[in-house]
C-alpha cells in the first residue's frame, strides 16, 4: 500500500522533501515498534485495521488541507464543512429519497461549494484566509444544524449506504482480510490528490502561488481564479470526508466536526508541509495522519490517560516542525 502512494506524488518538486518524508516515515515505524514491544495487543490484525479505519476521515480532510497549505493558505473550516456535506448527503438520500450515488456526489459538491465560497472571499474580497475560513467554520456549523433540524439523519432505510465505508471489497476477495472500504477510499483519494498535485496545472500553480504569489501573478497567471480552485478542491475532499463519516456512523451527526480541522492541519504539518507554503507532499500528509492515529491508538492500548495523549500529540507536532527547521539549516 505504501508503495502505491509513494509513486503517486511523482518526482518531488523539492529534493529536501524526500528527507522529511523519510524522517516522518521513520517516526511512524518507530512508534509502531515501540507500541508493539509495549503491548501484545497492539500489533494484531484487528487493531491495525482499526488504526487504518480511524485514519480514514482525518486522512481525507488532511489531503484537502495539504493543497491549501501548499498554496500558503489555511482552511479552518474543513471539519465543519465535512459535517455540512454529511448532512447534505443525508438530506439528498434520506429526505429526498435520491439514489445513493447522487447523495455522494451531492455531498462532495456541497463541500466543493463551501470551498469555492472560501476561495472567492479570499481572492476577490481579499479577506485573509484565516478569517474567511473561520467565518465558514461558524456558518457551516450553524447551517448543518438548521438543515438537519438539529437532529441526526439516519440512513437506516438504505443499508447499502453503510457499505460504502464499512463494507469490505477486499474481504470479499480474500476472506479474513476485512479491511473496510473507507481505508481504500482514503488511499484512492491520496492517489488522486498526488496526481493533481504533480501532474496538473492546478498542482503547479498551487506550489507557485505558495512560493511567491506576486511573481506568479506577474508572470500572467490568474492567481485569483486558481486560488479559488485550490480552496474548492480542499472543500471537495472535506465533502468526501463527510460522506465517509456519515457512512461509518450510519448517520449524519450535525453537531460533530469541531476540532477536526486541527487534527487535519497537524497531520499536514507533521508530514513536512510548510505553513509558509510552496512545499509539501501527499505522502507526507498521509504519514502524518497515520502518526496521529497510531499515537492515539497506542497510548489508548497502554491505558495512558487521554489528557496526556493530547500533550504528547502537541509535543510531536512541534518536534516534527523543529526537526524540519534543523535539517534546513544544515
Amino acid at each position, binding site marked *: 500500500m505504501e508503495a502505491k502512494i509513494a509513486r503517486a506524488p511523482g518526482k518531488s518538486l523539492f529534493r529536501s522533501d524526500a528527507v522529511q518524508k523519510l524522517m516522518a516515515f521513520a517516526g511512524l515505524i518507530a512508534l509502531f515498534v515501540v507500541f508493539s514491544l509495549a*503491548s501484545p*495487543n*497492539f500489533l*494484531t490484525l*484487528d*487493531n491495525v485495521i*482499526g488504526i487504518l*479505519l*480511524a485514519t480514514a*476521515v482525518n486522512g481525507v480532510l488532511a489531503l484537502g488541507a495539504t493543497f491549501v497549505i501548499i498554496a500558503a493558505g489555511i482552511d479552518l473550516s474543513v471539519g465543519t464543512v465535512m459535517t455540512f456535506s454529511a448532512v447534505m448527503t443525508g438530506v439528498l438520500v434520506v429526505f429526498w429519497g435520491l439514489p445513493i450515488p447522487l447523495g455522494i456526489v451531492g455531498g462532495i459538491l456541497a463541500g466543493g461549494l463551501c470551498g469555492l465560497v472560501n476561495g472567492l472571499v479570499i481572492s476577490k474580497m481579499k479577506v485573509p484566509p484565516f478569517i474567511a475560513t473561520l467565518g465558514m467554520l461558524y456558518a457551516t*456549523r450553524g447551517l448543518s*444544524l*438548521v438543515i438537519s433540524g*438539529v*437532529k*441526526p439523519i*439516519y440512513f*437506516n432505510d438504505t443499508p447499502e449506504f453503510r457499505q460504502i465505508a*464499512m463494507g469490505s471489497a477486499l474481504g470479499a476477495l480474500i476472506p479474513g482480510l476485512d479491511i*473496510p472500504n473507507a481505508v481504500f477510499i482514503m488511499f484512492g483519494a491520496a492517489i488522486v490528490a498526488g496526481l493533481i498535485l504533480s501532474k496538473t496545472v492546478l498542482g503547479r500553480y498551487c506550489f507557485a502561488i505558495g512560493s511567491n504569489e506576486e511573481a506568479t501573478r506577474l508572470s500572467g497567471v490568474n492567481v485569483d481564479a486558481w486560488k479559488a480552485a485550490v480552496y474548492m478542491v480542499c472543500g471537495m475532499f472535506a465533502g468526501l470526508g463527510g460522506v465517509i*463519516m456519515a457512512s*461509518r*456512523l*450510519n*448517520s449524519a*451527526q*450535525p*453537531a*460533530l466536526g*469541531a476540532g477536526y480541522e486541527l487534527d487535519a492541519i497537524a497531520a499536514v504539518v507533521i508530514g513536512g508541509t510548510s505553513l509558509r507554503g510552496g512545499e509539501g507532499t501527499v505522502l507526507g500528509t498521509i504519514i502524518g495522519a497515520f502518526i496521529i*492515529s497510531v499515537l*492515539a*491508538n497506542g497510548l*489508548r*492500548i*497502554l*491505558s495512558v490517560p*487521554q489528557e496526556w495523549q493530547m500533550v504528547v500529540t502537541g509535543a510531536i507536532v512541534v518536534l516534527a516542525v523543529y526537526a524540519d527547521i534543523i535539517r534546513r539549516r544544515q
Partner: protein
Amino acid sequence: MKRTRVLSILAGATAAAVLVAGCAAPRPAGTTGGAAQPAAKPYIPVISKGFQHQFWQAVKLGSERAAKDFNVDITFEGPESEAQVDKQIEMLQTAIDKKPAAICLAALDSKAVIPLLEKAKAANIPVIGFDSGVDSDIPVATAATDNIAAAGYAADKMAELIGGEGEVAVIVHDQTSRTGIDRRDGFVNRIKEKYPKITIVDVQYGGGDHLKSTDLAKAIIQAHPNLKGFFGANEGSAIGVLNAVTELKKEGQIVVIGYDAGKQQKDAVRSGVMAGAITQDPIGIGYKCVEAAVKAIKGESVEKNIDTGFKWYDKTNIDAEDIKPLLYD
C-alpha cells in the same frame, strides 16, 4: 468616499443578516396572540447545557409544553458544547439583565455560576435548577435525575449480565461536568463496593463525539481481549461503544449498557446488541422545571429536590407504556 461605501455595505449586510435571522427564529413558546397583544405573561428564560443533542431537544419540548400549560413565555438556549462554561455564564448574565419572572438553569459548572445566582437572588428572581444541581442554596428547586443512583443501577445490571466477575470498561462524555462525574462515580463505586470480582480496566472520555468514542472504544477492546462488559455513560459514548463492538464483530461477546435514548440505541436494544440502557425523563425534566418556576413566581411552595426518576429499559420492556414516552428518537 470609498470608506463610507464599504461601511454602508457592511451596515446593510449586517441589517439584512439580522433581519433574516429574526424571521427564521421561532417565536417564544407559549406566544399565542399577534403583535398587538402586550407581553403581560411572565417570562422565564431556560438556560440549558446545550441544544444540539437530542436529549436537550427533548428537555426543550417538555419546557415548551409547560409554558403552554401554565401560560408563560419561555426562551430556551444553551451553549454549543458542554465545555463552554464561560458562554453559559454570559447567557445567564443576559437573562438576569432582562429582569425575568424566574430563571431555569442547568449549570455546566456547579460553582462558577454562584456569583450570578447571588445577583439573581438580590434582584428577587427565583432560580430553578434542572438536570444537575448547583453547590448553593439559592435555587428554590432542582429538577434532575439522580445520576449516581442511575449509574449505580447500570452497574448492578452489568454485574448481573456478566455473571458477577470479569473485566469491564467505561466511556464517559467528559471528566468535568456534574453528570459525567456522577455517572462515572456512580458506576465505578458501585462495582468497587459490591462486586469485588469485577475489575474496571479503563475509564476514558470521548467528549460525547460519536466518531471519537468509536475509535476510543475499539482501542480499549483491543487492549483488553477478555473484556466482558462495556458501559457508555451518555448517548454519544454509548453509540461509540456499540459501533466498536459491531465493527470488531464482538456482538454477543461483550455486554453493552448505554444511557439515554436516540434511534440508534433503541434499534440496538431491540436487536439485542445492546443489553439495555438507563433512560432519564428529559421531557419531564423540562416540564417540571418550568412548572416549579411558575409555582415560585406565584409564591407557592415547591419541593426542593424534584427527582425526575430513571428507568432501565431492554428488549423486553422497550415498548412498554411507562418506558416508551421517555425514549426520544
